[in-house]
């Protein structure tokens, strides 16, 4: 919790005010039974009045009591205001800090956390921490006050009541410890089971077509049934444990009450105690025990909050893996992209994805990357905008090692169109404009035209103002890719990278896109990952990647002449030339 504490410290002043008002409120609560006793003893029983009830005394004490209670209520309200302010502000600061940290995590770190877990942590877990802070400020102080103050008032009424407290308190304490030790591990299990149930639902909704076409409805039902059973069983266990809490506490409380009446009656008989004091004592003892009961509830929140706090802490403690550099301007004369004996393995796997890759690109050159599924094409691309750092060797952009670059400046020089087109729940125009926030409407349209997207966008009823559903689901695969391409083109950066980002385009559209690129983006260094020979054959150079190594590099004709692997790829696509005889 060390990492989280500074977020609370900032609001310590408000927390202090909250506690102060809480103390005032509880003090009123503690004064109350004494006044009640006065009303009963002096007013109703008329103990100072020769056995005659004293109504003026009842009224005056009553009014004082009401005023005091209202003042106490006002203090309580103020305490709520300050403690809420503290809790919510801490929560808000934590939420913002976490989000900002998440935005700067490396891809590796995001993958390790998983999206779902990050979302739960930033929403659910933070609100748990938030209620922990509020509970500690308000609840703990209240309970302690009630307990200490109640005990003091009770004992000052009559010392013989000590026995009652001395017996009741340890029993309750032991019981609370017992229940807490039982429940806290269950909360963790509960959290995991909820996650499991949710993920099965999620998969079945998104994968409905697969489930249906394989007729696996029964199997999925059974799978869900089991997860559901596990969840409800755990919930049941928690409920059962908690069910014992109240009756046990009630029994202790009520036995204490009976004991007090018994002990009190003996004292009254001896004449050392007034009957009104018994009633006050009953009120005090119930306050003490209620304080303890509240403490139990608070401990539950605290247990849950601690678990959540740790999960939030994990985000805050994850250092950005890639340290930022300072280079903001490259050398325009230098080679655009240089790989110098680069090797790469994903951290922790030990499996080398790229081996000893070396090549350099002049500004304005076009490089195509081709190779079989899983051979490392995307990994190679990911090293250029520094999504990952090479394990060995150096990658340089515009003459400087990418590790020396300021990350934002580096990524500003590069437009990447990743394999899976990621769109946002905004209008199409806004999605494209993410490439350049200051672009004019004309520039957006130009980029869309170049990406062959203008025609389908203008065909839509709302044109560029059409809202894109979350994840881009309202568009077809090809449309999504074209919007993403338009976004990349709008960027006007020095280096343009397409990572198999035209796979859902039909051939004609793709060809038109490449023609436009060749014509209008001559000075831009282009790196194109593709499967189709047609997409790569016109590149200045083609890099043939095989199992993480450069198998061959050169122009289409050079590779046709020199690389058997390349020829076989061409054959796989053009076999029909022989077959069909064209």
């Amino acid at each position, binding site marked *: 919790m060390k990492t989280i504490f500074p977020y609370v410290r900032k609001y310590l002043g408000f927390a202090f005010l909250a506690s102060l008002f809480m103390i005032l409120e509880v003090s009123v609560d503690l004064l109350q039974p004494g006044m009640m006793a006065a009303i009963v003893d002096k007013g109703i029983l008329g103990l100072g009045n020769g056995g005659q009830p004293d109504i003026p005394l009842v009224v005056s004490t009553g009014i004082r009591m009401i005023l005091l209670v209202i003042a106490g209520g006002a203090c309580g309200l103020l305490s709520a205001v300050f403690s809420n302010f503290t809790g919510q502000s801490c929560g808000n600061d934590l939420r913002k800090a976490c989000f900002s940290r998440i935005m700067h995590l490396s891809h590796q770190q995001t993958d390790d956390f998983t999206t779902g877990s990050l979302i739960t942590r*930033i929403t659910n877990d933070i609100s748990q921490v938030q209620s922990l802070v509020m509970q500690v400020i308000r609840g703990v102080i209240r309970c302690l006050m009630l307990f200490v103050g109640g005990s003091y008032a009770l004992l000052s009424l009559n010392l013989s009541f000590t026995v009652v407290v001395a017996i009741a308190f340890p029993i309750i304490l032991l019981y609370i410890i017992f229940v807490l030790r039982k429940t806290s591990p269950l909360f963790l299990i509960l959290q995991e089971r909820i996650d499991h149930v949710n993920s099965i639902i999620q998969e079945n909704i998104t994968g409905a077509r697969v489930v249906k076409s394989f007729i696996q409805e029964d199997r999925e039902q059974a799978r869900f049934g089991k997860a559901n059973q596990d969840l409800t069983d755990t919930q049941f266990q928690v409920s059962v444990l908690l069910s014992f809490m109240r009756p046990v506490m009630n029994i202790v409380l009520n036995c204490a009450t009976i004991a007090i009446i018994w002990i009190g009656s003996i004292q009254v008989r001896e004449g050392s105690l007034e009957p009104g004091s018994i009633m006050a004592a009953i009120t005090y003892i119930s306050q003490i025990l209620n304080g303890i009961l509240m403490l139990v509830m608070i401990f539950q929140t605290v247990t849950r909050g601690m678990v959540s706090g740790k999960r939030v802490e994990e985000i805050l403690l994850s250092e950005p893996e890639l340290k930022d550099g300072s280079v903001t301007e490259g050398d325009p004369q230098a080679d655009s992209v240089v790989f110098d004996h680069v090797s790469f393995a994903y951290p922790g796997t030990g499996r080398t994805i790229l081996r000893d890759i070396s090549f350099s690109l002049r500004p304005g050159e076009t490089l195509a990357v081709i190779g079989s599924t899983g051979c490392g094409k995307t990994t190679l691309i990911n090293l250029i905008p520094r999504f990952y750092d090479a394990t060995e060797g150096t990658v340089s952009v515009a003459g400087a090692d990418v590790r020396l670059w300021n990350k934002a400046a580096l990524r500003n020089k590069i437009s990447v169109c990743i394999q899976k087109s990621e769109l946002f729940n905004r209008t199409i125009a806004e999605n494209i404009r993410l490439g350049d926030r200051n672009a004019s409407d004309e520039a957006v349209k130009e980029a869309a035209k170049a990406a062959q997207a203008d025609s389908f966008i203008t065909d839509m009823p709302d044109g560029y103002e059409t809202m894109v559903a979350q994840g881009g689901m309202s568009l077809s695969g090809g449309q999504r890719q074209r919007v993403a391409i338009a976004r990349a083109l709008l960027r006007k950066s020095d280096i343009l990278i397409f990572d198999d980002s035209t796979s859902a385009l039909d051939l004609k559209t793709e060809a038109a896109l490449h*023609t436009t690129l060749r014509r209008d983006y001559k000075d831009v260094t282009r790196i194109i990952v593709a499967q189709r020979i047609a997409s790569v054959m016109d590149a200045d150079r083609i890099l043939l990647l095989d199992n993480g190594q450069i198998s061959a590099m050169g122009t289409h004709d050079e590779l046709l002449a020199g690389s058997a692997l390349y020829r076989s790829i061409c054959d796989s696509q053009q*076999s029909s030339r022989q077959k069909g005889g064209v």
Partner: protein
Amino acid sequence: MAQQQNVSFRGGPGRGMGTPVEKPAAMKDTLKRLFSYFGSEKVYVLILILCVTAGVLCGSFAPRMQSSAIDSVVRGSFSQLPRLLTIMLILYLLSAAAVLLQGLISARLSRNITGKLRNDLFDKIVHLPVSYLDGHSHGDLMSRMTNDAENVSNIISQSLSSLFSGVLTLVVTLIMMLSYNVPLTLLTCSTVVLTLLATRFLSAKMRLYYVKRQELLGKVNSTVEEMVSNCRTVAAYNLQEESVKDFEQTSDALKKTGIIADILGNAMGPVMNSLSNITFVIVAVFGAWFAIHGYISVGVISAFIIYSKQFSRPINELAQLYGQIATALAGAERIFAVLDEKSEDFSGEPKLGKVNGVVEFSHVNFSYEPGKQVIYDFNLKVEAGKKIALVGSTGCGKTTIVNLLMRFYEPDSGTITVDGTDITKISRHALRDAIGIVLQDAILFSDTVRANLKYADASISDEKMLESARLASCDTVADALPDGYDSFLASAGAGLSQGQKQLLTIGRAFLSYPYILILDEATSSVDTRTEQNIQDAMARLMKGRTSLIIAHRLSTILDADQIVVMDKGHIVETGTHSELLAKKGQYYSLYMTQFAGNAT
């Protein structure tokens, strides 16, 4: 505070905080249906009612004993005291036992009923037609399964017995007070009106802010979800600072609304506290006055003091319960709305036997939305054992044809037959059993590679699985993973590349040995050499079986027996590769762009 102390198990956001109070529309029907879930638990409900009654009665009689005890202390008649105290002890023990039993039964009811409700809902979702899932927000369905079911669970486990005992306590306390003294009872009740007014005012305000807070919370959730799942684009376009700024705005708004909502919630306590003390003073003043005039004894005053506390507590609780119950009923209503959706109809010929694979579309018209026709007079006959390819630009209706053949959607007019039988006469299970399909989006499940491959039938032998994996070239994918076929694909294969996922889905389809195989852009992210290996394997595997292939990449379909070129929902050309090339029509120009690259 009271609400936060309730232990809630909701997985979603805003747990333990006030949820917006919604007004259920058809409360009576919903209640009736909800009660039908208690049907098999009748005995337990009965015991629960008995326990609550016993608990409330004991809890009400005990103060009576207490007041008698104090009376006897005041009067100095100590001889009765042991008896009274013993009765008190017994009553308190009984009431504790009743409370315990009540808690246990509620836990049991909650487990059984929410478990059943969630199972029912899931069964429904699994059997909902694809068209429903396509047309409704997945987030909304998810929230019905999780949040709404949880709200219902909470009223069963917590609110039900509170509601019961609340009402009962009110009635019993009222009777007790009346039996002591009528005027004093009326005076005690006088502040109830104030309590009611205060609750009403506060809960109306609270509702407003709770709803607003819930909305903002939803916004925070969706921002995080979108930004995190699109983190690669965010990084590539330096959108971090901008999205942080956006997020902070929403987050700050949430904080402000949250503070107001919670303060209103917290105000309830002090207000109620003040009111109950006012009641106390009223009871004391008038009680004393009555005592002076000899109408009542002092013990009665002490009883009334307890009763007046006992009286205001359930009113306070019921006011809070009202919100919870209304929210839960609204949730139940949303759950029932899904349960009332029509499931897919599985009637029709239950078994097909051996399928030859003659598929015929005749005069099929189709539109997803009325007035926006997607398929026009589609006619196509696929001979048994042939390989048919559908080509055409994005959005021309290829995937729709697959949707119709699988009976995910029904045509507006026209018929589709398999082996001469109208597919509407065949049960969907039998139809889908005969067809294997690989979809555009490679969807895997969070399970082991082995379980994913054996998805069609878990009892298939490992040898067959390995063979299929080899044929689909996905053996390399499995081999590259740390635990081979036993590797667990976390987050449905998030760590795999698009091409690797596609290979696994192809392996999965091969392993189901279908009579008809549909590949819808199944190899778009797979390199062409691997693709060719798969095709060679398919040629052997699908010998004598029909296959339907959709692809942009013409190399995928060159050797098809028949190529169907579609444009805007119409068939424009059909024929073999060489026939179509000779025609020099649309296919010819598609082909030229692919292999000539820039010849447009």
